[in-house]
């Protein structure tokens, strides 16, 4: 009997989530629920200045008056925001040296393939590892310090660089921007902060791994990256989460500021727990990511989204300065009962602004995968250019692939081009591979990787390898 697609499906249906393990470290928690006292408690625990507490409280008050967005092509179950613990930190807070870190934690990181030691030695990547909410280890700090680069946990930045945090926090994503951003602003526990001084080219990829560990713990990171005039930074964000039965809410906010002539490259591999093959469990990933590009600056988003039960995410760029550039490269894979509504917004305000959007969606199983993108050319954005290519691939007849582009043009010198296709994986391509002796599952992974090539090639090398592996894992058992 030959090995058919159905066999493959059956074999892999029960494949366990690769990174589904939990770390047994005692954590310090505060009670469930959300009110002004909890917001104050979080702020107090983090020893925050008065202005930040006020900022949080304003966000909280605004959030109370808001309602969750309903426009996305998603079925989101009712979330009980009072049933969530808004702060958890590993009890041991400070590590003097790498040796002080618990062996369990090290082991966790090893399983994730991100052993700090190895990465430090082999790749030269500085890792800011976020375990639940508090940053436990930051490396390469001294080396970066020499160049004047600040790369630290958000809490540390609040203590040590309050003037920078105060100047830029909330300037790209205001507290009241949307329901989830407001929630994040009120309760964010930690995250990363990065500042690249004028004219400095950050010599290494900066990277942060996030991980949700504590059951029933929402994670609300806040990331702020400021690239001062003429600087460059490539920032990597990778997410893996352990297997959990209960849904977990993840509402992060990322703000990027690229000042004149600066460039920020922000890459994400998102692999939160997607739920089991029946759609039970999984992370709700409701993320607000936005950057602002000043004169001649460039912001490039690359994302490989394979995880989460529900993804609601639109990394966007405001092209404020003349000659600024925005890019968005995305691969979004959904399988089983995953749902994704993801895309970008390119807001052209300045003259000669350019944006490129390449989106590759792959839907399998019973999943729903939607691209939603806005290209807006404002009245004074002379000679704005946008090119959008948006492809969807369907694997199986029980899933959905959707394309919802919004094109708004108010300047006659603009050129906006949008192309989209939806189809299934090419049977002739599969047969061609088979005829050359390549097995079907391999053929599919080859074709899918080729299909995503334009996006994957934008990832830094070490990430691209992981991303390709993830694509394969995510689509296992979905051939049809």
């Amino acid at each position: 009997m030959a090995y058919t697609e159905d066999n493959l499906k059956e074999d892999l249906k029960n494949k366990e989530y690769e990174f589904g393990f939990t770390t047994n470290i005692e954590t310090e928690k505060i009670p469930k629920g959300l009110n002004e006292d909890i917001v104050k408690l979080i702020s107090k625990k983090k020893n925050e200045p008065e202005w930040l507490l006020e900022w949080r409280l304003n966000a909280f008050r605004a959030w109370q008056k808001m309602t969750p967005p309903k426009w996305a092509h998603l079925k989101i179950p009712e979330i009980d925001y009072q049933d969530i613990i808004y702060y958890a930190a590993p009890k041991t807070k400070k590590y003097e040296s790498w040796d002080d870190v618990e062996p369990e934690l090290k082991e966790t990181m090893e399983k994730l393939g991100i052993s700090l030691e190895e990465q430090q030695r082999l790749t030269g990547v500085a890792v800011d590892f976020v375990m639940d909410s508090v940053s436990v280890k930051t490396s390469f700090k001294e080396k970066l310090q020499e160049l004047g680069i600040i790369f630290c946990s958000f809490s540390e930045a609040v203590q040590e660089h309050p003037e920078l945090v105060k100047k830029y926090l909330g300037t790209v994503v205001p507290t009241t921007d949307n329901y989830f951003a407001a929630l994040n602003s009120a309760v964010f526990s930690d995250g990363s902060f990065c500042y690249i001084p004028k004219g400095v080219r950050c010599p290494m990829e900066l990277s942060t791994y996030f991980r949700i560990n504590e059951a029933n713990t929402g994670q609300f990171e806040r990331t702020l990256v400021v690239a001062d005039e003429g600087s460059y930074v490539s920032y990597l964000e990778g997410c893996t989460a352990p297997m959990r039965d209960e849904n977990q809410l993840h509402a992060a906010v990322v703000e990027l500021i690229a000042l004149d002539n600066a460039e920020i490259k922000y890459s994400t591999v998102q692999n939160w727990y997607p739920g089991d093959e029946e759609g039970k469990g999984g992370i709700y990933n409701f993320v607000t990511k936005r950057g602002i590009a000043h004169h001649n600056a460039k912001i490039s988003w690359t994302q490989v989204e394979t995880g989460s039960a529900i993804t609601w995410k639109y990394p966007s760029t405001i092209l404020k300065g003349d000659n600024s550039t925005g890019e968005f490269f995305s691969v979004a894979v959904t399988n089983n009962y995953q749902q994704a509504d993801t895309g970008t917004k390119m807001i052209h305000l300045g003259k000669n602004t350019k944006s490129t959007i390449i989106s590759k969606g792959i839907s399998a199983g019973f999943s729903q995968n939607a691209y939603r993108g806005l290209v807006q050319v404002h009245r004074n954005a002379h000679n704005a250019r946008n090119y959008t290519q948006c492809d969807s691939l369907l694997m199986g007849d029980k899933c959905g692939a959707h394309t919802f582009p919004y094109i708004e043009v108010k300047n006659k010198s603009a050129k906006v081009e949008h192309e989209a296709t939806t189809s299934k994986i090419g049977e002739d391509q599969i047969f061609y591979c088979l005829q050359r002796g390549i097995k079907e599952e391999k053929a599919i992974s080859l074709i899918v990787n080729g299909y995503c090539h334009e996006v994957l090639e934008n990832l830094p090398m070490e990430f691209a390898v992981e991303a390709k592996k993830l694509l394969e894992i995510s689509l296992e058992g979905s051939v049809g």
Partner: protein
Amino acid sequence: METLEKNDIKSQFLDLFSTEDISKNPVRYKALEHLMHIPAPTTKDEFWRYTRVNKLLKKNYQLPGYEVAEFDQSILKKLPLNNEESTLVFVNGVFAKDYSKIVNASIDLIPFSDALVEQKYQSFYNKLANNQKRFFDAVNTAFHNSGYILGVPTLSNEKVQIIQIITNDNLLLIPRNLILADTGAKITIKEFFINQSGVENALINQLSEIVLMPNSTCNYYKYQNLSNNALIDTTHILQNQDSAYNTHLASYNTAFIRNNTLVQSSGENTTTTVNGATLTKENEHIDQHIFIDHQQPNCYSNQLFRTIADDKSTAVFNGKVMVRQDAQKINAFQSNANILLSDFANIYAKPELEIYADDVKCSHGSSTGQLDEEALFYLRARGIKEKTAQKMLISAFLNDTIDNIEDDTYTAFISQEIEQLIQ
């Protein structure tokens, strides 16, 4: 019946129409009941994101009279009419018998009447209009005061001309049409919405229900040229197997147009072509909304829209293709291109695909920008003045949409009008 708040824009309708008359007809009355619960659309509604109707609905309107009004007959002469085709003329919504004629007695072509619907067309009437959800559908079903019924029997081939002329300012005209193409029949409809010169501030809310039986064809060519008046035109089409619906929308020189072309392909092997040319100037606002719902396998649909926006005008294209689960082997295409001629014009395009079946080929392309610089240069290099070259390119651009029209006189007429409009 519940009462409305004083400032509800729906109250005007209730003031204009006799609730007593409406309550006599159960279909109208039911729609009225629905209407009480549907708010008028706002830009918060996804389908009305780029088009506001609030101002339109706040104007004061008058109903048509019962007599055929005098009108300047030269406006009829400008139209590409064919004397050998059955023709219905309405003036301010009132059927003008003297200008109309039926060339084939075997078809039904008559002004809309609730009575005839009850006798003969009950199983088709009001089956496609969505009075529960769509505000303007409910308004039309409750209050319609004009329109026609067209029934074409099996295997016949009919060409029909419908002319709606507006001669009164502030007219509120609500035509309701019912079109039935029986098995194997072919219908070609040319529909003209025009106004007598200087007439303004009329509002037309038309709703057509088109039922295409197996293997039938309907070509519907809509000519919309209404100066300073407003038109909301909703066409529901139900396609049974092997049927074809081909439409062209020529929408220009009108203060406000919102077209809803809503196709349900509920049989296998259907063909649907929805093409349109939009040209907006000054403060005009034209919104082309298309929804093609593929419910069955082996079907083809194509949308082709070209838009020119000048001055401070706004043009909207929102074309959507939905392919339902198990509706395999669908080929669905959308092409939309827009050109802005002014820095104060607005283009909004939203070409959408919502696909639930895997063995499909669906694509869309949308481009917004200026005229092709290279083509322009090429023409100029051959000695053509820039202005002339621009006009040539604009008219070629819009004329892309008319290739499929199966009526040479009509095609030539549209082409010529476009030529004049871009002067």
